[in-house]
């Protein structure tokens, strides 16, 4: 067991000026402290999202680092170290090297990771696509069960909530245990990548799974907590070994003396590195929903979409809803699918209470803790220009 479980991911340093700003940012009320006294994070309530960290005007909040463990694995010739990067990392990493927010640097990112010594550079977007396959199928099963179609009796209740965001999962477990049967059983893309890397790769590449180290680059501090959850060992090993944030990767690139901006473009490695546009948009609020709609529509209707954009689910408003008519071939009729997107956990309580009271008519609800989605995660570059 690592020290994470006892110390927590997010801690307040002695630089705290007790300005109280974080107590307004924290979605769960986990931070307390009198004006003028160093503030304190209550471990039980903290969901590790790091929103306090990126919004602290004094840079006084820190996250647990696994960078030394990653460097040790890279330096160990016996270890076969593979890396995955979340969608949101590629449009923010460039900011640490002076580029504008939103600049896509994924091909330089792959090149930098190879220079750092990773044996294989894959992509979390591959397992984001895998998530859509599993979570989308689960949703279809739940809808068929609700419609009384035979053979789907063991499917869970509607609406189905997304399960990608570990801060949201901990919040639901802590505060709303009755809503848990509604959450998709599909693991997050990060946690799907781990067991795939430690079971599928050994078979294909003829390597010993015990030698594989899985590293994630995430826009998120809660992913560090997620990888340490004790149940994530379905490969027979710890599925994902270490997580570094976008900020920490930038620092590793600088420490290694790599001239990031002048790297030539490279691609991810084959086998579990190929991604689609559907996976790319996972990093923005509404993206998981849109990716799921693209696949669910085509699989249920047997038709090809003329336009793959579902612009109704996009935007930055904290709660959004839309209805999409899907002509379901198996039922011989069109099914109106009601979806809801929540970004910012401060807005999720009323949505959950409606579900628990039986007042909700949604089929699928996406929840992301950070306002705007993973692109504004607690592991992303800190925008000092906003102070």
């Amino acid at each position: 067991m690592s020290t994470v479980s006892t110390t927590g991911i997010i801690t307040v340093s002695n630089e705290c000026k007790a300005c109280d700003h974080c107590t307004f940012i924290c979605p769960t009320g986990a931070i307390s402290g009198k004006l003028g006294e160093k503030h304190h994070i209550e471990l039980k309530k903290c969901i590790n999202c790091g929103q306090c960290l990126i919004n602290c005007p004094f840079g006084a909040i820190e996250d647990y680092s696994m960078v030394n463990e990653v460097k040790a694995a890279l330096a160990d010739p016996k270890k076969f170290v593979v890396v995955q990067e979340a969608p949101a990392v590629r449009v923010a990493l460039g900011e640490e090297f002076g580029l504008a927010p939103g600049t896509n640097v994924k091909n330089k990112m792959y090149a930098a990771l190879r220079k750092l010594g990773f044996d294989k550079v894959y992509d979390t977007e591959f397992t984001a696509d895998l998530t859509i396959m599993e979570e989308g199928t689960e949703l279809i099963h739940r809808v068929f069960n609700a419609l009384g179609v035979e053979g789907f009796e063991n499917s869970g209740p509607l609406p189905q909530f997304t399960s990608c965001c570990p801060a949201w999962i901990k919040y639901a477990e802590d505060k709303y245990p009755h809503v848990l049967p509604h959450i998709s059983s599909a693991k997050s893309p990060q946690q799907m990548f781990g067991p795939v890397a430690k079971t599928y790769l050994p078979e294909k590449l003829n390597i010993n799974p015990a030698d594989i180290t899985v590293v994630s680059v995430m826009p998120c501090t809660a992913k560090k907590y997620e990888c340490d959850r004790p149940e994530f060992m379905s490969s027979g090993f710890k599925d994902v070994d270490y997580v570094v944030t976008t900020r920490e990767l930038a620092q590793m690139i600088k420490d290694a003396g790599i001239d990031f901006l002048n790297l030539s473009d490279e691609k991810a490695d084959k086998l579990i590195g190929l991604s689609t546009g559907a996976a790319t948009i996972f990093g923005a609020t509404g993206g998981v929903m849109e990716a799921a709609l693209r696949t669910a529509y085509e699989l249920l209707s047997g038709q090809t979409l003329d336009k793959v954009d579902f612009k109704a689910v996009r935007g930055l408003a904290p709660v959004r809803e839309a209805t999409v008519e899907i002509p379901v071939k198996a039922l011989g009729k069109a099914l109106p699918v009601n979806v809801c997107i929540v970004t910012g956990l401060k807005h999720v309580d009323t949505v959950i209470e409606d579900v628990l009271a039986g007042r909700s008519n949604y089929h699928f609800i996406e929840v992301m803790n950070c306002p705007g989605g993973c692109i504004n995660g607690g592991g992303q570059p800190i925008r000092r220009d906003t102070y």
Partner: protein
Amino acid sequence: MSIFTEKDGITRRQFFKGAGMLAFTAVVAGVFAKVGVDVFAASDDYIQKRAEGLYTLDEQMAIRKSHENPEILQIYKDFLSPGEIKPVSEKAHHLLHTRYGKDIPGLIEELATHHDAA
């Protein structure tokens, strides 16, 4: 030298002092309000730009739907559901699905038994 004396009315000097303080307070409040609005706008601005970055990248991708990713089709056919593309197969369920809250200890026990048997 209080601004508010008990006498009726105020002197010319007191009026200027009071008016000056009010004007100063108004300017300071205005500056802070402007800073607040700017911070808020700037924060929304970079989130918006990162989101636009992802949507632009989506439009540039050769494949834009998860179920058309050839490596996804391959992992089902070769490994997760041999010979076919069948999500939530037994192997997919074991590797790619989880449980929450009070169901976690049972899952850990099942996984330990599974690995001992293997």
